[in-house]
């Protein structure tokens, strides 16, 4: 499978062309997804902290987390994509953070979608089917809760 190394470096490995294209595409998707989601998460966290900075609120927050509330302190609880969008329109910290979480979750999911496209270009039908099924299951998981 491996081609002969063109340099004298014994560790130089050139994967088959189809695999090299897949690796390149996956790397790009993961990098973009990570950079975007991390930036949004940082902004959202700062906005949340600025809005709820009193110690009384912090105390209530910890207490509520212990009792199993995901979004304590009287803050909005965005659960659906629509609620996140409404929270964003009002510049609410938790909504921005959840957008970051969504972008983060979408990163591996988009990686699967992009893989399906790369396999399709290689006419690798079996792996197109595998990737599409995995993608469909991932999308379904959001509807199953």
């Amino acid at each position, binding site marked *: *499978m*491996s081609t002969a*190394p063109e340099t004298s470096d*014994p*560790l*130089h*490995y050139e*994967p088959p062309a189809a*695999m090299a294209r897949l*690796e390149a595409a*996956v*790397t790009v998707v*993961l990098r973009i*997804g*990570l950079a975007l*989601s*991390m930036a949004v*998460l*940082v902004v*959202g*966290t700062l906005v*949340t902290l600025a809005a709820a900075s009193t110690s009384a609120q912090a105390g209530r*927050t*910890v207490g509520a*987390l*212990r009792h*199993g*509330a*995901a*979004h*304590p302190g009287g803050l909005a609880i965005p*659960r659906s994509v629509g609620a996140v969008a409404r929270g964003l329109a009002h510049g609410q*910290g*938790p909504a921005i*953070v*959840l957008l*970051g*979480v*969504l972008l*983060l*979750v979408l*990163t*591996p*999911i988009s*990686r*699967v979608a992009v*893989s399906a496209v790369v396999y399709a270009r290689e006419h690798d039908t*079996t*792996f197109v089917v*595998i*990737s599409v*099924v*995995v993608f469909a*299951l*991932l999308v379904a*998981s*959001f*509807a*199953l*809760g």
Partner: protein
Amino acid sequence: MLLGIGVVAGGLGALLGLGGGFIVVPALTLLFGVNIRIAIGASLVSVIATSSGAAVAFVRGHMANLRVGNFLELATVTGAISGALLASVLVPRVLYVVFALALAQSAVSVARRKRLEDRPPPAPDPVADRLHLHGAYPDAARGRVVEYRVARAPGGLALMYGAGVLSGLLGIGSGTLKVPAMDLAMSLPMKVSTATSNFMIGVTAAASTGVYFARGDISSLLAAPIAIGGVAGAMVGSRLVGHLPARGLRIVFAVVVFAVAVQMLVKGLG
């Protein structure tokens, strides 16, 4: 503090081919007294961050076998959805016990992990042949490119379903089950198993996160700092892999994980 937990979880996770949930969930429940379901939701998010961060380095370095990963994701995603649905039915006390047992199993499997790179070639597997799963990777420690053949692909698929169920149930990447499944059952070299495990964990965790998100069990307050720390830790960890004595690291890891497992078990049974 939460950021620090993320950095430690991400760094260790990337080093050992795990997601880092084995640190996040106990830290949140035992140190902060957070409800375990919320802790698991936060852990899943950090696992995706850690896995994606580590995967970038492993894919670029030709260490992860993407075809094996894509193939096995069929089983891990199905398993993760089953597990996440099961978690909404089970009581927290049961979750503690299951988590403790999974941790203990992890500690044992990591401690016993030996050098399995010099095995005889495995029996041919028509499924692996048909799917072109075989590959090669540059092994820095051996100073050359190593070619390998994949065996028992259907068996690996079955084990991965089990790993997926545990991911969804416990909010861990369950790399401790994925790595042995690829390494021991499918005859993949250890380093490829570790890298491919990291590559797959993001997709497995994304499936269970979907279910947790729809149920409202994802706490943004907890998830964000841990995820940010996780990515930072993973970036460092995945680059350090080649430079650290693996044996010592594994023993330290096994001891820490075992201690946490005992604590969780006491909490679940007490």
